[in-house]
């Protein structure tokens, strides 16, 4: 029996590696054909318009196939068209750092001009990004930070502190009181960006509104709307005086708002959180979600490509500098580019 199990497991491992191999290869080849196509068309246009050769810029999300990274990809591709650079938007189908490393190795071998990556694990990408730098490739991170020393610029969707404080302030505004109980629900207890926002929100609350009471530690919802729905209901039962909820990660505020709607508590309990604009319209309309906010996802992709091109052109990164196609940008520290303040979605 043991042998049977072992052989089954080995077969599983083999098949999955085979499948993984197939999928990434087909993706690669399809993007390659795409890029060669765009190259040839662009070669024609550049011949007539200018003599400037176009850059190959790889923009790699954590994974492809989720709405967030589909939208950032649209922005990146749009920037590619408008700025006349080849944007290769590709990433693994699961949020896997090892898969990212493999793909980046391939792109380094191909000899691209810039690599912009949203790392699944910063440390795991260190060697491959080092290799890219040695090969003279411009390296940027976006969405999530890579190791600081290895990148030429770091594109942030938002100032983490600003978003955390914004959520806390808005919750107090909608609750209409500075004296009440609130709870925080989050997508995952181990996601560093979510934890950073929560930390800033809590600190702001403690400092500015000491009478606001956080009833329990942030509650994880596994990035699932159903979990957010049931956990919110449970929280309301455990803490009947709960008057406000901050929900971070995009499915969480929608699930929380649904719980409020099902219990008919729209006027008693306020919900604010990070949500994708298109997906939160229904809960905003029935009043169960008071405020959704996020950055403009398409702009994030656009800005990444625009900054990469500007640096490839030989410009130095400075605060308030003008970037072609985007306008002036906000730079904090020596290489953190910040997209801008959060966008609010209300009824």
């Amino acid at each position: 029996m043991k042998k049977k199990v072992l052989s089954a497991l080995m077969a599983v491992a083999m098949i999955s590696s085979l499948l993984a191999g197939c999928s990434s290869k087909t993706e690669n080849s399809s993007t390659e054909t795409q890029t060669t196509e765009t190259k040839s068309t662009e070669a024609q246009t550049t011949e007539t318009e200018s003599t400037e050769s176009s850059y190959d810029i790889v923009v790699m999300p954590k994974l492809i196939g989720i709405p967030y990274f589909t939208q950032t990809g649209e922005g990146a591709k749009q920037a590619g068209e408008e700025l006349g650079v080849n944007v290769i938007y590709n990433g693994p189908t699961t949020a896997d750092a090892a898969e990212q490393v493999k793909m980046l190795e391939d792109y380094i071998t191909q000899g691209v001009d810039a690599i912009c990556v949203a790392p699944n694990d910063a440390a795991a990408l260190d060697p491959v990004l080092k290799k890219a730098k040695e090969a003279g490739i411009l390296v940027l991170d976006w969405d999530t930070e890579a190791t600081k020393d290895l990148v030429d610029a770091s594109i942030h969707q938002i100032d983490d502190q600003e978003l955390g404080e914004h959520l806390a302030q808005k919750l107090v505004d909608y609750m209409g009181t500075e004296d009440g109980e609130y709870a925080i629900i989050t997508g995952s207890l181990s996601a560093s960006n979510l934890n950073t926002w929560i930390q800033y929100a809590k600190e702001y609350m403690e400092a500015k509104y000491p009478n606001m009471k956080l009833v329990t530690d942030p509650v994880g919802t596994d990035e699932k709307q159903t979990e957010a729905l049931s956990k919110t209901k449970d929280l309301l039962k455990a803490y009947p005086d709960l008057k406000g909820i901050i929900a971070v990660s995009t499915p969480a505020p929608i699930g929380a708002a649904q719980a409020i709607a099902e219990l008919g508590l729209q006027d008693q309990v306020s919900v604010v959180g990070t949500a994708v604009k298109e997906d939160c319209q229904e809960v905003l309309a029935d009043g169960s979600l008071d405020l959704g906010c996020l950055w403009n996802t398409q702009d994030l992709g656009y800005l990444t490509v625009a900054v990469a091109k500007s640096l490839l052109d030989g410009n130095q990164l400075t605060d308030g500098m003008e970037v072609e196609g985007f306008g002036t940008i906000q730079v904090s520290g020596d290489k953190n580019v910040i997209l801008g303040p959060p966008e609010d979605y209300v009824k």
Partner: protein
Amino acid sequence: MKKFTKRKEFGIILIILIMSFILTIVSSAFLKADNIIDILRNNAVYGIMAFGMLPVLISGGIDLSVASSIALCAVVAGKIMTVFDTNIVIVFIISMLVGALIGLINGLIITKLKIAPMVATLGIMTVTLGVVLLYTGGTWISGLPEYFKEFGMAKLGNIPTKNGLTLGIPSQVIILILSGVVTWLMLRYTLIGRGIYAIGGSEASAVRVGYNVDKIKVFIYMYSGIMTGIAAVVHTSIVQQVDPNTFLGYELTVISTVVIGGASTMGGVGTVLGTTFGIILMGILQNGLILAKIPTYWQKIVMGLVILIAISVDVINRKREQSKLVRVDVEG
């Protein structure tokens, strides 16, 4: 009473009783009709899928494809609803057909190509997930029709409560109960049901006795697929939009629910009653840890421990019975 303590489900019933007792003491909200109904509704999707997974595990197989197939069923059902003017019955039937089709493919690969169920369903899981991502690009489907929203909030019974809401058995819970009853009848009173236990006990003997093992296996995987199709519509009726990525990891929750309920991944054992208790235990755990105000970071630890205890009690019970059998053999 002695007979009761010897039942396979005894361990898990004991754990559920102890937990409920503690939770009732620490939280006044626990033992209330609306909370019990919430627990059942929140776990209806896992429950329905667990009833589909039970025959698979009894037969000694495994179905890893359920998480991907529920995603595909939900996406198809969501699209049908937003594009065509149809009704809830048609939506259910189409979703069940999609699930059955995936089950049929699983079953045929396992029986005709003689590929191990774990490998076959893993392959189908990956292919199906690929189809879902290709088709949706990961975007949500929203704007579902009014009749579907009504179905999602529909209740049997209408007892007014003090906060202005009404109490009744939600549509999702009714479907959960129906799935359990149908699975119970199928396993207990049909030839196929007996055959499933026979295959799990010993496939060679089942063939010798005259069961058409291949046909039964194909049926098992189709049954799991159909239940997944039902679960897809039930899930969508709760959240009122389709997020194709939300089902990640469902197969593990479903399989562990069935295993906690006394089924064995080696096949041959498992009952609908046990699975029902498995669903209840998982539901109480999720719900109770928040109601008991246990700090979030501790919840996973407590959850893992309770699951371990539940399974250990079961295994120890079984071992004891077996050792008795051996002794009788030696002495006799």
